[in-house]
């Protein structure tokens, strides 16, 4: 047993009880602030009488992450650089009964992991985050950090740092952290108090500890002993209440210490769990969208009749137009109806990045046979709802195939010799039904009547199952109007 492991009275024995056996002495350099943070943290845990078995320590990469990992005797999750808060968030959601604590450095939390820090603060997720701010990348030998003061020469700012440092505590407070405090390793009693308050706080709690890196930062600023740092912290520290009375110039070079924010706000994990409890309660009324709608109720049967003159093989259809015409919806309903009829069916769609206005297609292939082509390039039935789509796809109509088009929107080339069926679908939707949005159903009804690709009743059931609640009747009327138009 090393001399350090001898049990002692008071706080030391409290620390000892909370330290993983067999690992001391720690690997920190002589005089490093990491040991002070560990001691103060252990004391806070001890004074709160927290059960370390109900705590999990999550850390990133860097000297400060080694403070609890592996030394603190609890579950410890030592993660990748910058991601400790994200890992901890997953743990927090799944382990509501445990205290989840992140201890990591300034580079880890505010540099590479800065995005997670601000978003966790915004969510107000119940984590306690202790940021040990030694103003440098210590473990890697003293490179400049987002917290390094201006002009300090580091190994990567040999001519002096030309960037201003982050005030991370203020950042977290502004982002929504509900308990935010800053102290230094000189203020050990205040630190213990702040740790206790943070651990007891419900919501995102954050304690910045300005701490000495005697090796790497010491080298940069010419201070090698802890005592020099502590004296400096003491001289430069200023209580927040005092700081409030001073001008920006007077605050230059000072370390403001105290509690920046302490408010009660709804906590993320609790809200999420409450929502899940409500949504998953079988007794509660359903909120939000229904599950995937069922197909029609009739059992799978033999393949229904297929389009006139198209034989008994697979049928490929393409609906094409511009975004917003409901082309994909029409394809979906056709596929759904086929599926409910026991046919093999595949439906595919394509559209540009913008959901509205661009060229848009929905392809449906109906069995009976295995469907190999995911993106067919020749069609038995082509439905064109825009001039652009006519230009783009007319050549993909198979010889002998059926062409259906909106008479007002598409002008077919002269003398095309096609089996073409025109319908003023958009006009019917707008004028007869009063809603342009049901153009797709008018077209679908017309297509169903012309091609007999699926039984009318199957399509109607699919419409009822698939369109938004309350619009079934309108959509069915549109379908019927299109169907009737084929007979006229």
């Amino acid at each position, binding site marked *: 047993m090393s001399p350090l492991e001898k049990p002692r009275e008071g706080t030391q024995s409290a620390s000892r009880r909370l330290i993983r056996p067999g690992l001391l002495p720690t690997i920190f350099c002589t005089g490093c602030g990491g040991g002070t943070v560990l001691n103060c943290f252990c004391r806070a845990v001890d004074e709160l009488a927290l059960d370390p*078995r109900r705590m999990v320590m999550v850390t990133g990469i860097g000297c400060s992450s080694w403070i609890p990992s*592996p030394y603190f005797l609890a579950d410890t999750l030592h993660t990748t650089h910058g991601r400790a808060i994200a890992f901890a968030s*997953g*743990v927090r959601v799944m*382990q509501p009964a445990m205290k989840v604590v992140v201890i990591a450095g300034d580079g880890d939390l505010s540099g590479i992991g800065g995005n997670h820090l601000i978003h966790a603060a915004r969510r107000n997720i119940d984590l306690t985050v202790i940021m040990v701010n030694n103003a440098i990348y210590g473990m890697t030998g003293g490179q400049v950090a987002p917290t390094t003061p201006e002009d300090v020469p580091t190994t990567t700012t040999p001519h002096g740092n030309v960037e201003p440092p982050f005030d991370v505590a203020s950042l977290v407070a502004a982002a929504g952290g509900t308990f935010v405090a800053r102290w230094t390793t000189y203020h050990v009693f205040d630190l213990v108090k702040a740790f206790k308050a943070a651990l007891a706080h419900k919501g995102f709690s954050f304690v910045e500890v300005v701490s000495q890196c005697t090796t790497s930062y010491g080298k940069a600023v010419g201070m090698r002993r802890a005592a020099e740092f502590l004296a400096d912290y003491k001289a430069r520290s200023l209580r927040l209440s005092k700081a409030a009375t001073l001008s920006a110039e007077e605050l230059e070079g000072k370390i403001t210490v105290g509690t920046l924010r302490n408010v009660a706000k709804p906590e993320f994990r609790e809200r*999420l769990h409450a929502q899940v409890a409500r949504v*998953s309660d079988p007794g509660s009324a359903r909120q939000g969208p229904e*599950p*995937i709608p069922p197909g029609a109720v009739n059992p799978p049967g033999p393949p229904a009749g297929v389009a006139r003159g198209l034989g008994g093989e697979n049928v490929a259809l393409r609906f094409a137009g511009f975004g917003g015409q409901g082309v994909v919806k029409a394809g979906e309903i056709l596929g759904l109806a086929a599926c409910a009829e026991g046919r093999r069916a*595949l439906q595919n769609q394509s559209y540009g990045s913008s959901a509205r206005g661009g060229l848009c297609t929905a392809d449906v292939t109906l069995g009976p046979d295995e469907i190999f082509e995911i993106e067919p390039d020749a069609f038995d039935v082509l439905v064109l709802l825009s001039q652009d789509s006519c230009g783009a796809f007319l050549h993909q109509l198979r010889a002998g195939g059926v062409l259906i088009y909106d008479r007002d929107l598409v002008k077919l080339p002269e003398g095309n010799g096609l089996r073409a069926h025109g319908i003023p679908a958009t006009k019917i939707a707008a004028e007869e039904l009063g809603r342009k949005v049901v153009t797709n159903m008018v077209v679908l009804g017309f297509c169903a009547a012309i091609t007999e690709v699926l039984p009318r009743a199957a399509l109607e059931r699919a419409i009822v199952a698939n369109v938004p609640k309350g619009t079934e009747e309108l959509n069915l009327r549109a379908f019927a109007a299109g169907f009737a138009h084929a007979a006229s």
Partner: protein
Amino acid sequence: MSARAAQLSTLAGARRFMLGDEAAAFGALFAGCSFFGGYPITPASEIAEAMARELPRVGGYYVQFEDELASISAVIGAAWAGARSLTATSGPGFSLMQESIGYAAMTETPCVVIDVQRSGPCTGQATKPAQGDLQQARWGTHGDHEIIALSPWSVQECFDLTLDAFALAERYRSPVILLMDGAVGHLREPLLFPTFREEMLAPRRRARPGELHFGGEPVPPMAQIGDGLDVHITGSTHRPNGIRDVNSEPVHDELVRRLCAKISDAREALTRVEHRHLEDARVAVVSFGATARPALGAVEAARRRGTRAGFLRLVRLWPFPGPALARLLGRVEKVLVPEMNLGQLNRELERVLDCEVVPLSKIGGVAHAQEEILEPLLEALR
């Protein structure tokens, strides 16, 4: 009855017409998924949307994070806290996740990552399908490691292989990649739901006090956060008890070799390929994912013309089923390899087969048409 059983029992035996992406989400629900962390990306967003809607209904937690780095990290954290956890993304997000996928491999975290591949590199053709992440799935994270990756070719398989992925993640204590492609993710087909039974969920082998949980056997039992075992989990090199030890050559050597061997030694057990007409085939078409469908269509068409064409597709991509392929394709003269990339599967096949291997690569965002495979196939059979 649990909320999950209550919700999913209503789907027993049901047929639905749904997107591949949605089918994968439902597969995760049936697999017991209890945590989803994600970030929106085309063409995988429909998985997140379906999970956001359905996961709370079965008592699970959906969280949309600030980016993919956070998503995969939270997924791993949740797994250690007891979740069956999932994220879903596409190429660019998959690239961002690679470091933490390495963490999951190193810490032996069971979790599932779905990559619905789209056309790259970089932003490429964001809305168009591709299969360019085959090698990224294998080698995306740094350092020696093995991975398990599966590749569905239909909506039904998006469901089935997601179930499979969760089971393999537990069985091998490893991240498992479901390598979908935009073509399969965004098509709708009928899906037949099985009957959900709580007993079907893949068990997680848990460590007892004093038991090694980071070594001592190929796949050690897992000590979770909250089990009271003071587990120490680190992506650094660690001893079989989990404690970091980054300076010892034997400790690192033993750890990394074990991590690789637990998967590569199970190569035969992990092999899943599907084939037709290979008995007398002279030329075989070998493919995976969406591309395997027109490939099979071409082979059937060639057969109807009296030729000796054969077909094989890889259902599981990694670990690469080299020995099985060498056996099954040992007698063919030539292999054609249609894929939506510039030869990533082709390269592996060249490595394990003695016969001529010919790429039929296609990029640009449009899946192969059957004709595009049939023509060179008939040519090769001439």
